[in-house]
């Protein structure tokens, strides 16, 4: 099987100041192949988002290696942290398209598609600062949906919004996940992870503590959360 992405013994720590370093990731080794759908489980601060940022080339590892197959790009779908509050949903969606590498013409022609997917009505032309969290999530998901990267890194975008939109977003994602693409999904919504992913890894304090079939890892995760209570 051809690997799209390979992490070999990857570690990364953050400088917390006063000579204190926080080990965000320790000795992570992972291989992602075309068609893989990997769920990433773990408590807050366990290194899930940092792992996605390494895969998206936003962070470089301190030690170890990350190898992408030729011409493979990875894109991170998050909850629109970069939205500019004073700009409208339309302007922010246009900007997102440009940031994803679309030309201005292509970005303009995508706006109708994004608008109809988001179902924000007249709010699409209002400043984002007036949006609820769910509305922001709709805009973020609608803008990110046009992504054509081979590796999709999905960080919690499916966990917010009302149930109708969550189901719509999940279906849209299912349509995107062709056998040539891979998806790595971070979510605290275990039901969604179960339905979207085939395999999973469990992160604890920056390390992979369990990996394997989705149901097996979910069982380990649920046991560990019950024990830690």
């Amino acid at each position, binding site marked *: 099987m051809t690997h799209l992405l390979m992490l070999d013994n990857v570690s990364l720590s953050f400088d917390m100041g006063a000579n204190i370093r926080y080990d965000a990731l320790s000795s992570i080794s992972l291989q992602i192949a075309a068609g893989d759908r990997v769920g990433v489980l773990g408590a807050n601060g366990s290194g899930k988002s940092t792992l996605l940022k390494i895969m*998206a080339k936003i962070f470089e590892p301190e030690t170890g290696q990350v190898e992408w197959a030729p011409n493979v790009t990875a894109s991170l779908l998050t909850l629109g942290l970069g939205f500019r509050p004073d700009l409208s949903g339309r302007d922010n969606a246009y900007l997102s398209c440009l940031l994803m590498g679309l030309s201005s013409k292509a970005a303009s022609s995508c706006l109708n598609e994004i608008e109809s997917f988001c179902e924000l009505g007249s709010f699409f032309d209002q400043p984002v600062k007036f949006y609820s969290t769910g509305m922001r999530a709709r805009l973020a998901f609608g803008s990110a949906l046009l992504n054509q990267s081979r590796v999709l890194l999905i960080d919690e975008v499916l966990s917010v919004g009302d149930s109708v939109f969550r189901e719509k977003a999940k279906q849209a994602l299912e349509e995107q996940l062709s056998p040539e693409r891979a998806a790595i999904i971070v979510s605290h919504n275990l039901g969604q992870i179960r339905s979207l992913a085939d395999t999973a890894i469990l992160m604890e304090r920056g390390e992979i503590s369990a990996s394997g079939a989705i149901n097996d890892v979910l069982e380990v995760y649920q046991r560990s959360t019950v024990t830690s209570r």
Partner: protein
Amino acid sequence: MTTIQYLTLIDTLARFHLRGEARQFYLGYLWWLLEPALYVAVFYIVFQLLLESRQPGYLYFLAVGKLTFIWFSKSVVQASSSIENNKGLIAQVTISKAVFPLAAVQQGLYRQLAVFSILLVLLFFSGKGQFHYWFWLLPLMVVQMILISGVGLLAALMVCWHKDFQHLIQLGMMFLLFVSGVFWDVNAVADADVRRWLLFLNPLATLIDAYRQILLLGSMPKADLMSVLLCQSLFLLTIAVGAYRIFQARIALRVLSR
């Protein structure tokens, strides 16, 4: 991304930022003109009315100097915090981080085009302006853009590494305000060596003097000083581009981990 796509992105970021900024204020885009006009008014009151400067046409002399200086200082200060201010986007997409300071520089250009247009109209109708060599404004503005881009990129990188640099940059702008001949004529310095060194060491003093030569005296800027200014600006921009190539991968970690 291709170069065209990067340029489109920089320009869009700049225009959208200006639009968002204008929406925050009741007077909106009018502040582009009001802010520099009020700066000039304050200095005019202090120097012309309170200190009773006897220099004829001092208001226009001051306006050319101050408006050129504001373009530089405001652009560099905005560029310096631009990477930090866009950490949300930096956490999401892998693009060259130089895009953000360059977008801040582009914003400054848009503002300045409006300011210079008003200044030219005022100079024309007051009869104080000289327009024989007005076409020299274009290459001069290009050189100033190169200078601002180089300094702005370096300032953003420094602030990204240590936020403390933000204070030093603001202090540096205050220092430059007093040593660049904004309120006084750099050609009035009696000692020729001091004058030469002042112009050679401070590209901003050369720029301000060149704008005055073109707009108020109707003469061409001095070729030797212009050549030095262009070399200095290109040198700073080259250093900045090199620094971004070296530190690109570490910028996101630096900004997002604090």
